[in-house]
């Protein structure tokens, strides 16, 4: 049996979600903008989903804009805010060094268009200090974007505190909550932000679905032009069946949140303790807490993550090194680099991210499998005798 420990990359659809998507694909095929019966069916499905997503986030349904995922939500938030605020003369953006590429590369793109972009550092535990934001922010700052929890190491940022600082200077605040929605309670009011991104496939919803929460009163200039869907904030005919599935996923996640979070935290802690005890030269990356309950990032000395990943996969254990989006390169993780980890420690990092399917027995198997694999990788010498 294969063991899946890469839930931060994506999750399988919950069977209830898959059923809803399949049913809606057959039956709810109308265009949600249409006046007639078929359109009304589609609109009703969207409304239901919007309500569920809003409930998961403590938001009002009218504030939820459906998108095709986290990357699109981030782009609408950041580009939309930048374009809306450009006429005010604010020309400064702030983000952090450990953001997902959806944020980092969007900021870079705006930087090339003349925006001044400040990238806040993180400390060795992977957390942004409010002091760094206080130093960087000015009354010129248009937007501060800080992720809620990091996808690679799971650490949670003090978003509420950062948001309060940003608001003192009149800046908007966006948070990428892709790795927290459905894993820990996310309440947009408690966070005090203005914009918040989520992605359906990270919490057992369909791929190609996401949402951007836009606090009422916040004006964005949507980067994509087209029809008036989603209250003029996201053009294009809505993918109703998938979004109906997103609604179910949000509903299920909300109901399971507390119990599942505690269960995963216990499993994760046992896995982490087992690996750290069983593998010489293994160290956890990032603070033990605050952290999403399912994530553990561990560096293992004198092995390369690529070899480790393949070895584990051949043993039926699916993990990743850092972000799935950066596979195919040997560039050390920008997150671990930003934390100031020595280069050698960034090379052998693996991320375990747990989820609904994982059991105690699976964790035992990982704890048993890893140490001998690491030893074997470390013992290799080139057959040609060149090394």
């Amino acid at each position: 049996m294969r063991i899946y420990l890469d839930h931060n990359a994506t999750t399988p659809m919950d069977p209830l979600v898959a059923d809803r998507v399949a049913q809606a694909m057959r039956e709810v095929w109308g265009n949600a903008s249409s006046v007639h019966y078929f359109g009304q069916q589609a609109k009703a499905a969207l409304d239901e989903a919007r309500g569920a997503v809003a409930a998961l986030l403590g938001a009002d349904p009218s504030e939820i804009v459906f998108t095709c995922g986290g990357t699109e939500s981030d782009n609408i938030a950041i580009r939309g805010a930048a374009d809306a605020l450009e006429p005010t003369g604010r020309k400064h953006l702030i983000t952090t060094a450990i953001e997902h590429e959806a944020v980092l590369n969007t900021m870079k793109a705006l930087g090339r268009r003349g925006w001044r972009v400040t990238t806040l550092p993180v400390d060795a535990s992977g957390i942004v200090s409010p002091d760094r934001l206080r130093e960087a922010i000015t009354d010129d700052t248009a937007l501060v974007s800080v992720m809620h929890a990091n996808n690679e190491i799971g650490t949670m940022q003090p978003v509420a505190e950062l948001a309060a600082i940003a608001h003192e200077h009149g800046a908007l605040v966006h948070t990428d909550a892709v790795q927290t929605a459905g894993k820990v309670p996310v309440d947009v009011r408690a966070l005090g932000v203005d914009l918040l991104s989520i992605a359906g496939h990270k919490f057992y919803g369909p791929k190609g679905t996401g949402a951007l929460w836009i606090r009422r009163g916040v004006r964005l200039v949507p980067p994509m032009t087209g029809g008036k869907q989603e209250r003029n904030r996201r053009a294009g005919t809505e993918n109703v069946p998938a979004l109906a599935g997103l609604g179910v996923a949000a509903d299920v996640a909300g109901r399971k949140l507390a119990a599942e979070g505690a269960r995963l935290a216990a499993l994760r802690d046992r896995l982490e303790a087992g690996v750290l005890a069983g593998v010489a030269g293994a160290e956890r990356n990032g603070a033990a807490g605050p952290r999403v309950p399912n994530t553990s990032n561990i560096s293992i000395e004198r092995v390369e993550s690529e070899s480790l990943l393949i070895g584990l996969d051949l043993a039926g254990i699916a993990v990743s090194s850092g972000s799935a989006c950066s596979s195919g390169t040997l560039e050390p993780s920008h997150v671990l680099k930003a934390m100031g980890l020595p280069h050698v420690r960034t090379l052998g990092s693996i991320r375990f991210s747990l989820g609904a399917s994982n059991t105690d027995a699976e964790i035992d198997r990982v704890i048993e499998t890893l140490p001998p694999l690491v030893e074997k990788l470390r013992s290799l010498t080139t057959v040609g005798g060149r090394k």
Partner: protein
Amino acid sequence: MRIVVAMSGGVDSSVAAALLAEQGHDVIGVSMQLYPSTRDGDNAVARSGQATRADDDGTQRWGTCCTIDDLYDARRVAATLGIPHYIVNFESQFGEHVVSNFVREYVAGRTPIPCSHCNSDLKFAELLDRATAYDAEQLATGHYARIERDADGRYHLHRGADTSKDQTYFLFSLTQAQLARAAFPVGHLDKNTVRAHAHRLNLRVASKPDSQEICFVPDGDYAAFVERQAPEATRGGTVISAEGRVLGTHGGVHRFTIGQRKGLGLSSSEPLYVLAIKPDTAQVVVGPRDALGRTHLTASEVNWVSGAAALDWRTVSAQIRHRHDAAPARVRATGDGRAEVEFDAPQTAVTPGQAVVFYDGDELLGGGWID
């Protein structure tokens, strides 16, 4: 048995993987990523098959083989075969073992063979290590070559059954330890049969053209590549006759190979060829074609594949280029991993940096680098 197949995305290694899988082996496809695929921090993906160029951030992008498209071909073939497939990133190892050697050799006035280094220092070294780590007994490639094991347990390397596709020339430096773990599943087939297998199995690469140029210099302009890689090491010099008369100037010894006629920039009543390259003085010596013939050469880093060095003169056929008909010769080891070769008849363009490889019939006895 578990076998790792080095899949380049070409038809030969694809069929190698397919045949092993059909035989019921536990096959794992692995493709080596040898060049950067994307620019840091941006979404600009390198277009494959493109002329070598430096991007505005200074990174180089190369490739006609093992490009991202080729890796995707390999991945899709693996999916068709239902075998696992991994892309391993060997950019730094490739740069270290293959590209830097290539550049160094050209700058030194020699004409290198990167494929040999890729085989002995990368595939049957680093990649074989990975195979070991994954409990694979063998590493298979799509080379046209055959391995035979004798009664004493020694491994012998023979030309591929399709002699027009034979690749043993590039494998001369494999050791017994490497051969013990190597498998060449298409070595006993001819190319048409390999393509027929690919068609039979509906592999998307069945009609894909063979790769021709050196993979990391897709436009074939080695000189420009060397200049980009080592701008500080290239300098102009003079073209001289065998008697030392200056006939012209040139842009660097790395632009020449022994026997070259084109690109000398000389006007002369008779065709002139590069006879010798003198990197220390940046001189290129030219002369008539009949001055290109040589019967004697020495070689270093000689590998005697099946163990026994020829201490006394041994009659062989010796090959001095991939596209050279092996010619009757005698060879003997002269100590320190060196050997000398005496051809029965003069051979045209004995080129330092190329390999001289000795055969007895179709068995590759050994080979080394021409001094």
